[in-house]
């Protein structure tokens, strides 16, 4: 746990809207143990500022003209800038949340959130933990659970996770090996993974299938 008193959390705010920037800057400046290191109006600007002057935490808007919040997250990863990121946005669609978390955001906050939530989020994320308000977390989980796999594909996936070969799966389900291969290809595509092993681990990780216990 870092010493809050001795070293304030240096925060960089990225938002294309000047009113939000001004409001956030004013608000955070009144908080003990926090310091607004800068305010950038675009992802590019934020990257430049971070390279020159590293900060502890990034408050990032999702939708911005030019580089979006997700793009900025990817760019940070590419340029090896390690910084904790909280997404601060007015959107709460499942896809936005999912993609932000996928891209490495540790927190997700709505702009309408009360000050206390925001402070808590900043402290939590600064300390290295995730901060997702419960309804966001629920939505995220829902998104993670949601797959568009067919019943047959789920069956195939189940057997795949148990380490069966295509031929064995085919025998078990009374279908040909080629059909199984088609199903597996389709699963790999749908789960956006590179191979069957990853498909199995991802499916277990996301809770799409039960962990085989034996």
């Amino acid at each position, binding site marked *: 746990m870092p010493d809050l008193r001795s070293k304030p959390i240096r925060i960089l705010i990225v*938002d294309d*809207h*000047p*009113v*939000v*920037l*001004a*409001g*956030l800057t*004013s*608000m955070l*400046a*009144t*908080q003990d143990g926090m310091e607004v290191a800068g305010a950038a109006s675009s992802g590019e600007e934020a990257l430049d500022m971070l390279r020159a002057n590293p900060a502890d935490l990034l408050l990032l808007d999702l*939708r911005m003209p030019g580089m979006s919040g997700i793009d900025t997250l990817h760019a940070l990863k590419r340029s090896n800038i390690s910084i904790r990121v909280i997404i601060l946005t*007015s959107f709460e669609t499942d896809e936005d949340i999912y993609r932000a978390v996928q891209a490495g955001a540790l927190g997700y906050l709505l*702009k*309408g959130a*009360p*000050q206390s939530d925001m402070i808590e989020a900043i402290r939590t994320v600064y300390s290295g933990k995730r901060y997702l308000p*419960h*309804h966001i977390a*629920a*939505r995220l989980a829902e998104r993670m659970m949601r797959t568009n796999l067919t019943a047959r594909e789920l069956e195939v996936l189940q057997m795949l996770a148990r380490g069966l070969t295509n031929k064995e799966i085919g025998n078990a389900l009374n279908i040909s090996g080629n059909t199984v291969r088609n199903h597996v290809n389709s699963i790999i595509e749908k789960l956006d993974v590179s191979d069957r092993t990853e498909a199995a681990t991802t499916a277990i990780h996301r809770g799409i299938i039960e962990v085989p216990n034996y």
Partner: protein
Amino acid sequence: MKLALSLSRRLLFGALLCLLLLLAFLGLRAYMHNPGRGLPYRDSFAKGTANEWRAFGGTWELVNGMMRNDSDERGAKLLTGSPYWHNYSVEADVYLLGSSGDAGLIIRSSDEEEGVNSYSGYYAGMRTRDNSFVLGRADHGWMEVTKRVSDSSRIRPFRWYHLKLLAYECQIAALVTMPPQAARTFLGFTDSNCAQSGRVGLRSYSSGGIWRNVVVQPATRQDLAEMLQNAKSQNEPASSDAALHDAKFFGSQHPQEDGRANAHSDATTQSIVSLRLASYARPTTATIRGVVILTAPRLYVQDFTGGIYIPKPKAPLLKVGDEVEVTGEVHPGDFSSTMEHATVNVLWARTPMPPMSVTASQASTGKYDATFIEVRGHLAGKERGPENTLILDLDEGTQSFRAIMNPGRGSYLFSKLRPGSSLRLRGICVVDPALTHNLTPFVLLLRSNEDLDVIAGPPWWNTGHAIAVVFIVLLLALVFNLAYHRIAHWRLQGVLEERQRLAHEMHDTLAQSFAGIGFQLQAIRNRIPKENSHILEQLDLASNLVRHSHEEARRSIATLHPESLESENILSALDLCARRMVEGGSVQVVSERDGNVRPVSLRIADALYRVGQEAIANAVRHANPTLLCIRLKFDENCACLQIEDNGTGFTQGNGLLGFGIRGMRRRAQSISAKFEIQSSLSVGTRVQISAPLPPRVTLINWPNLFWRYVREHWIDARPSKQADSYPYRG
């Protein structure tokens, strides 16, 4: 670059097309205006056709392969050819049928009308009255050059003369070759202000005539010179190129100067009508005087009292309009008499009698039997009768009758007549059963083609057309319907796009500003010392208001997205919205639909959705319920949304709650919906909004709806009070 190329190619193509069209037009015009078009021309009278000829007065008929005008009408004309014929000659054999008039040829005629000199052109003809050869210029007036023919070859009727008329530039020349010694007489003049071009024609004046071998051919200067040469070679001194010095106008001719001396007047003549008093039993002999009204197929004579039929007369060649004296045996009939074994003497020629205008019913009484009448009728049918006659069946009101035309020139007109046409016919009314066959009360014997005028074509309205119209109307309605829906679809598309744009706009400005202002207020609040509780309270309220507004803006944005607008989606959208709000809580959300989903307009969908959102938000935020019920009910004429919870309820809305309720009511009002809130403490709250829908038009109920519409909009012309016809409670 590509675009410019294709554009310039298109332009080029367009220009070429225009040029081609222009060339085609010019070519067509040049062809039509070509002074040589249709030349040389030779008549086909011998073949029995003369469809290209057009008559102005007279009774022009083809008889024995020759064109014949049996009428003594003054200035009867028959024309053909192109109005652009310029230098040409016309020649024909001409036969005079009367001793008091003239007959000949017209050249370069234009602007023709019915009447004596009602044309513009040149005429050359033989005149029996003063034994002269005439050439002159007609221009709705008459100027002539005449030449008396020597007594040795005086001009007489019932002889063939060969007449040639030539127009070259402004020189007009005429040459007549006369029997018996083929003596030639020439006339010519130069008209400084000449008629440039025109048709050719046959013309007679106060005399009938027969024409044959009509030949029209282009003329050159050489042809003119040849004609002059011909003229010089003759014995008589030719007054060629005579100026119009002896030209004079004349408009009246006096048929009394008749050459034939058989004009004797008998004091014992009777009026035709008086013959009906003759005895049926014993034929009497009588003499009448009258005008010939028809020569073929039957001879009819009419005086001022009535008409008479003269079968098989002993008569010279008769023409319509001849004043005659008839002596014969009288046989009175039912309506008119006949005169058998009659001898006919021609007294003189006079203008043919005008017809009496009667109706078909009047004619059917028999009162006008054997007289020349004019009657109107609608053509019911046409057929070819015996001996090649053309029979027209006509109706006028309830009366039907027949008209019989001679073949020949009539057949063309006959073929063109369409059933249903309205016709005006002139002819001899005959009630003789020999002609009527007792099928119709009377039959009209037409003298010639010119006795039939088409007043109006057949009525446009008949069964085929009616069906076509119905089809076209249906087709148009279909097209209109399609177009209407397409346009409505485009409009909706446009509206949706605009809403999307608006949503983005609101998100980028309004929502962000609310967020920013909220943060700013928070910053201010953070700096105010705790002891200023008064200010802090007010700041908190301000913060809450901003947050509420922010949420409102976000909801507006959500509403503007197209997917939430379909009526079947309102419920699912509200359900989703409720589930989002209660996420993590222990509230059970139930949504139900009742009745058949009906499409609702955007405004109504918006309002329902927003009111629903607000009601759900209020319930979740303030009432702390365990059950939230969303019900959407579609009725005959309303869409009803109900949000019910089993929460704490409230007595009176205050603060943000009151704010929200006012907003809901305002929205309901904007779509004339009924809005109700029922709430009781610790039982729950029910919010209900009923939006009126336009009644659905179905096959069964449309007359009802139409009647209601009419009653509301036309009979009860009071201003509609629909907007405030619902009481607001709650």
